[in-house]
């Protein structure tokens, strides 16, 4: 599997939207174990209630991780130089998340190396963004683009 995207990449290019979820308690617990985030807000109903929340809610970095999976499936891993997330809204059990991404900028330097900026969003089924992110990729001059 190619780890550096090949082919022409232009401003406005996008990947097909991809869904994650519905978010289950199991998915949250699985991510909690994998990441080491055992904040009870995300898995303990009583704790969440005492803290004033209607229910447990997902870990923001889980949605952030899904969005990272979306962009690395599209553009690979090795070329990634920066991945920056903003957490906008909480994600709740049963939510279905839709990830989208668009190439926002492509710059080529004197050596022909491309720097590609990608705008990403992970939206809840309500249409509201749960996480937005930007990813910066670099590609050497000989990446097969036309």
């Amino acid at each position, binding site marked *: 599997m190619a780890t550096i995207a090949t082919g022409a990449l232009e401003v406005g290019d996008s990947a097909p939207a991809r869904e994650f979820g519905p978010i289950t308690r199991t*998915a949250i617990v699985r991510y909690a174990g*994998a990441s080491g*985030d055992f904040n009870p807000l995300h898995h303990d109903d009583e704790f969440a209630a005492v803290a004033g929340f209607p229910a447990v809610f997902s870990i923001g970095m889980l949605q952030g991780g899904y969005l*990272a999976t979306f962009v690395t499936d599209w553009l690979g891993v*090795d070329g990634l*130089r920066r991945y920056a997330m903003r957490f906008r809204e909480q994600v709740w059990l049963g939510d279905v998340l839709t990830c989208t991404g668009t190439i926002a900028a492509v710059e080529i330097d004197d050596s022909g190396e491309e720097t590609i900026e990608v705008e990403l969003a992970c939206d809840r089924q309500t249409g509201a963004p749960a996480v937005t992110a930007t990813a910066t990729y670099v590609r050497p001059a000989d990446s097969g683009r036309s």
Partner: protein
Amino acid sequence: MFEVPIEPGKVREFALAVEAPTERHYGPDAVVTPTFLTTAGLAWEPAEEQAVLDFDLTRTLHGSEEYEFPAGPPRAGQTLSVTTRVEKQFERPGERGGRLRFAVVAREFRDAAGDLVAVQRSTAIELGDVPGKES
């Protein structure tokens, strides 16, 4: 400074949790997924190295998080050295009065050669105490 082993099994477990294909995150050329290094602060950072914030944790949110990789996400199977610091703190007025306080915790990850492999910046936001509200 503390050490974080980038364990192949853990990299794979994390990839599965974020639904990334394990083919590129397990095996001889395995690399971490973009957000894997969040495990450093959560699972490896000793108490004495943790950034000290005087935030009220009952009204503190995770606002943003970023990872920089000067040479791409690091490979599994190595041990990285990590230093943690509060990079900046600032505040601004909240929309409903009170103030929002921001703190950016930065972790620098270096490999055995001392090269900077990654920088994580994690921003916490303490929501404002609205004047007149019982805390």
